[in-house]
């Protein structure tokens, strides 16, 4: 994005972080919730806090240069050796006590919504519970305290785990090769498409410059293809939300390098014609890339290789329960068919004379590798967590993961069918999709409804994605939510709709009412972003 404010640029006059010196705990322009005046004419609280929902200024607003949280001895006289480049002014760090710092970050963490705090019904995200067993295994000193440059003889256990994880991923996909390095899903896509490009180049097929992507695809798919130097051509969906095979056939040609498809697709629907799709793609000499973001719906049920897929990335942080979002790095291993395996990125875990070894150079059978994608070996901590998850579930348990995930989504779809308007007829796979058809009559938008869900204590669903559905709400409950929790979510959605039916639309348009901040001006934040805090001038002068 080029719309960033350069450092040092003047702040927008209406900056949200602007606070008066007199009342630092009560930001201007952020009316407290339920601010109706009582009989005595008072609104809100004196402090701006609402019980445990405490207004939390920035550390820079709380700190003072006159205070210091640590007791450091004055440095003895010394002669700087920076050739006159040493800093002359104050460094500008706030002085704070330890308790102020601890409370600041604790309070911020309490404002954060997380999978450990409640249901995360974001579609296309697979926000499932992160089992504590995974965490315990990842913290075993034999895994947690390794250094990537240790001698191989001292890390045989870690390499054995990487090999075992790859073995499971091979079994689950039916593919013979796994590339472990990619950092997360998008880099997994990049890895897969670079491998495809390398394979075409090696076969003298340099004229293949187009990549076909369904119009409902994750935005990363066309972005990945473009980054690999391909021209992206989109394939329309048919009326049932699936790839239009006739349109696909018409777009295929000798200049097509690959099709990128997600199955189940981003509408939460299985592509029933996937075998035909694979056949026509292969018939045109192109490779079939599958975005594995929705693998949770089919893990243990069907092997992607049996569907004709040549490459698929996994999101260990989706299907295999490793932390997701701000909770940890992702991890995006890639499964490859035999023809693509020689191009896999380095390093490879291979059998060596004294146990496991690493192939780190493009020589011998690795001569065709695309090279390194990432420093060292990938997200080792996530490999441990994902493998712990696999072992604790077993192959039958992983199959039940998919079955229960699909059951949960269909339960939601059935329970909300008469409340919201389903975008497509069910049954769905692991996520269910609604449009705003039932809201438009009330002049309430999908965004308004999502904000109202925040007031009810739920993270909103994915909204306005996929783009092919008007005012989309995409809900993926995952298998780790209980029926009780799903019922609470259903009751909240049904209750909100009942309020709409009873003439309560206005309240939706101004929601949320009970969150720490009311409706944010997302438009202004995007058009005039304030990316840097600077001290308010009058306060600075007074000190």
């Amino acid at each position, binding site marked *: *994005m*080029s*719309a960033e404010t350069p450092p040092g640029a003047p702040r927008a006059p209406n900056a949200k972080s602007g606070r008066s010196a007199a009342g630092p705990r009560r930001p201007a322009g952020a009316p407290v919730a339920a601010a109706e005046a009582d009989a005595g004419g008072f609104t809100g609280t004196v402090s701006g806090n609402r019980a445990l929902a405490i207004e939390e200024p920035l550390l820079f607003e709380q700190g003072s240069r006159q205070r210091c949280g640590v007791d450091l001895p004055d440095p003895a006289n010394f002669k700087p050796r920076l050739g006159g480049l040493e800093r002359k002014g104050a460094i500008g760090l706030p002085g704070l006590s330890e308790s102020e710092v601890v409370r600041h970050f604790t309070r911020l963490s309490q404002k954060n919504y997380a999978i450990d705090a409640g249901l995360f019904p974001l579609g296309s995200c697979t926000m499932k519970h992160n089992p504590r067993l995974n965490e315990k295994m990842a913290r075993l000193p034999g895994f947690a305290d390794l250094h990537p440059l240790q001698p191989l003889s001292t890390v045989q256990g870690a390499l054995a785990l990487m090999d075992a994880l790859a073995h499971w991923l091979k079994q689950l996909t039916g593919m013979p090769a796994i590339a472990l390095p990619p950092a997360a899903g998008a880099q997994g896509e990049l890895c897969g498409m670079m491998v495809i490009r390398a394979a075409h180049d090696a076969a003298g097929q340099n004229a293949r410059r187009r990549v076909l992507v369904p119009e409902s695809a994750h*935005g990363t798919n066309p972005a990945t293809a473009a980054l690999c130097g391909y021209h992206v051509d989109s394939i329309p969906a048919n009326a049932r939300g699936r790839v239009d095979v006739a349109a696909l056939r018409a777009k295929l040609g000798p200049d097509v390098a690959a099709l990128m498809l997600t199955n189940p697709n981003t509408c939460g629907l299985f592509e029933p014609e996937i075998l035909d799709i694979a056949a026509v793609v292969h018939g045109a000499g192109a490779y079939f890339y599958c975005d594995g973001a929705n693998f949770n719906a089919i893990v243990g049920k069907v092997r992607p290789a049996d569907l004709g897929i040549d490459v698929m990335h996994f999101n260990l942080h989706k299907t295999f329960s490793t932390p997701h979002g701000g909770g940890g790095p992702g991890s995006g291993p890639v499964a490859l068919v035999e023809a693509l395996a020689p191009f896999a990125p380095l390093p490879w875990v291979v059998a060596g004379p004294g146990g496991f070894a690493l192939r780190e150079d493009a020589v011998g059978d690795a001569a065709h590798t695309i090279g390194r994608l990432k420093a060292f070996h990938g997200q080792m901590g996530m490999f441990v967590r994902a493998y712990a998850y696999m072992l604790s579930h077993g192959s039958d348990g992983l199959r039940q993961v998919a079955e229960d995930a699909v059951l949960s989504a269909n339960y939601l779809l059935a329970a909300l069918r008469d409340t919201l308007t389903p975008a497509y007829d069910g049954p769905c796979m692991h996520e269910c999709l609604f449009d705003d058809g039932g809201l438009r009559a009330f002049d309430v938008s999908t965004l308004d409804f999502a904000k109202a869900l925040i007031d009810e204590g739920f993270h909103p669903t994915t909204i*306005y*994605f996929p*783009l092919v559905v*008007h005012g989309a709400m995409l809900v993926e409950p995952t298998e780790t939510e209980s029926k009780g929790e799903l019922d609470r979510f259903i009751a909240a959605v049904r209750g909100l709709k009942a309020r709409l039916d009873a003439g309560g639309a206005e309240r939706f348009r101004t929601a949320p009412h009970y969150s720490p901040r009311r409706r944010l001006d*997302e*438009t202004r934040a*995007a*058009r005039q972003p304030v990316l840097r805090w600077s001290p308010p001038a009058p306060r600075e002068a007074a000190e």
Partner: protein
Amino acid sequence: MTEPRYTSEHEWIRLDSGVATVGISAYAQEQLGDVVYVELPEVGRKVAAGDNMAVVESVKAASEVYAPVAGEVAEVNAALADKPETINEDAEGTGWFVRLKGVDAAAVSALMDADAYKKYVSSLD
């Protein structure tokens, strides 16, 4: 000034004395919501019909703007960089994106006229 023509991807194009002005339709801006950013092509770039010519980003989505017909970029609406809201306020006027030269007048008149586009849009809801 000639009447605008429309594409099924919601661009409009108007040909005036050999130069075609292109933007997104009022319907498109309404569907996008508040526009926050636009990416415009370099002047002099040659585009074929259907090529990605620009990007428009709103609070909801980022969308591509396609060239309705082939031509060469003669001018871009640089004012949109600082005031992307112009697209919401006047999509089919001051919110134009690109001016193309060297376009085929017949290709322009082969596109939907306002009535046909109106019918097309009403078929989408």
